[in-house]
């Protein structure tokens, strides 16, 4: 028996105001159930993940009027949560503890009249304790932590800003074909180089968007999936990697990530290698994250991610279509639900203008913390082994 994603629910995404994260989450679950042709009452499991701007928790079940659930939990491994939730849902279906599980992420960090950057930034005149001291000295944003990681990769392997720019350009090219993308205007390497520094070596166009909204998926058995409204997206494999990098001598921080263990586990379960992958949907909070993930998954050797990205492999017409909806860099930032939702859209053949030529095997990644957590899913329009 296999498991499948049978429903996808996406609220309006971006500068969406006036709805709390809980309301957005509830709306996404309703949309996902309707998409699958299921009634809310058919759900017997609910897994919830939240971002920065408020916390829909397990009370979401009450908001939705769900009763007699057999699985209900708040799950958190940051940006790796979406893939983790889907794997927990699939395992619950496989072992019989639930039959039909919704997995939802919602966030609303953006406020009207506020810049996107300030949603993830800190500012103060007085600072308290060690955390305050680090922020006072200048490390006030996640951007700077990823900049430290990217700079280390550049210093060690010769990765260049232009190579990171190639990822931004390819991702934007895909976004131009996605009506839901927030940023659709094509860009060039020159545009990338000219965009302001956020935290050197990261330009503005190396950094993801910030978005409000919610996305939900529904997982059930492959057998049940056959009778539902939409083509099932089958789950072939999953994995996680939590390297536990310590900030001390010998750390691989910035050089290698949990993607190595996570990707290997997911591909082993799926019975595939990187050569079988048609499409990658990778967590792209920064261009650098895509680069290091491709290396750790084994699409190229360690240190060669820059050359691989610059080869044109990732964009439309390339050998490894990656982030075909525009990713978090250009489409919308729903943590791990950004790559997962695009994987479902591509596997169903719903990509329209941006549909990848072949989607038999799609690799989906999630990345959480400052490269602390990783999850991987392998999905396909076909049942495994069929």
């Amino acid at each position: 028996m296999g498991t499948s994603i049978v429903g996808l629910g996406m609220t309006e995404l971006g500068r969406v105001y006036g709805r709390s994260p809980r309301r957005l989450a509830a709306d996404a679950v309703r949309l996902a159930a309707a998409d699958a042709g299921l009634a809310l009452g058919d759900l017997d499991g609910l897994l919830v993940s939240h971002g920065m701007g408020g916390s829909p928790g397990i009370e979401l079940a009450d908001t939705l009027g769900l009763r007699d659930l057999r699985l209900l939990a708040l799950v958190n491994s940051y940006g790796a949560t979406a893939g983790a939730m889907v794997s927990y849902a699939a395992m619950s279906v496989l072992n019989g503890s639930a039959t039909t599980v919704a997995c939802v992420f919602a966030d609303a960090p953006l406020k009207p009249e506020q810049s996107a950057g300030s949603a993830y930034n800190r500012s103060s005149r007085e600072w308290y304790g060690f955390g305050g001291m680090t922020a006072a000295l200048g490390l006030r944003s996640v951007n700077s932590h990823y900049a430290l990681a990217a700079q280390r990769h550049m210093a060690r392997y010769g990765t260049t800003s232009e190579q990171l720019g190639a990822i931004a350009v390819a991702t934007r090219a895909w976004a131009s074909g996605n009506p839901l993308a927030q940023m659709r205007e094509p860009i060039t390497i020159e545009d990338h180089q000219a965009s302001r520094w956020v935290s050197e070596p990261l330009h503005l166009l190396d950094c993801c968007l910030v978005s409000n909204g919610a996305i939900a998926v529904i997982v059930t058995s492959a057998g049940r999936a056959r009778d539902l409204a939409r083509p099932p997206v089958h789950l072939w494999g999953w994995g996680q990697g939590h390297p536990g990098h310590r900030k001390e001598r010998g750390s691989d921080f910035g050089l290698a990530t949990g993607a190595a263990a996570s990707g290997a586990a997911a591909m082993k379960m799926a019975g595939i290698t990187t050569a079988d992958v048609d499409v990658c949907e990778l967590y792209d909070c920064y261009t650098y994250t895509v680069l290091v993930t491709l290396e750790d998954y084994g699409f190229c050797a360690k240190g060669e991610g820059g050359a691989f990205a610059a080869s044109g492999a990732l964009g439309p017409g390339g050998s490894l279509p990656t982030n075909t909806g525009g990713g978090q860099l250009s489409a919308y930032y729903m943590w791990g639900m950004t790559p997962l939702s695009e994987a479902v859209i591509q596997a169903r053949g719903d990509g329209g203008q941006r549909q990848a030529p072949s989607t038999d095997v799609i690799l989906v990644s999630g990345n959480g913390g400052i490269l602390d957590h990783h999850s991987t899913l392998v999905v396909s329009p076909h049942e495994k082994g069929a």
Partner: protein
Amino acid sequence: MDIGVLRRDGRTDPFFDGTAAGRLVVRRCEACDRWFAPDASGCPGCGEEELGWAEASGAATLVTWTILPKEPPAFLALVELAEGPWLHARLDGVERADLREGLALRAAFEHPDEGESYVLFRPWTERGSVR
């Protein structure tokens, strides 16, 4: 870049007593002979939750860096203390051309008129501070 005013929070007294006296005081697990950053909450080796405090040499090397587009630019870094732990730090007296993995650094202490003293890291050679 305006640093603002640093305040103690109840967990930081030995550290800020140290910076006030020009000493870099960090965490140490005596049982494991292991050093940690001053914000460490425990020793993963033995599980000890009440780490001791010990004076580090102040010698460090540059692991990686980022530059904030301020006027003047702010040089932020991960530095590796000679004793092993990494600290998130602010560099002082450096230029872009100086920046490389392994650059030798030394703790330097700032004593503002208001708020706690803090530590910066400056390039360092056997003959003393480069600048």
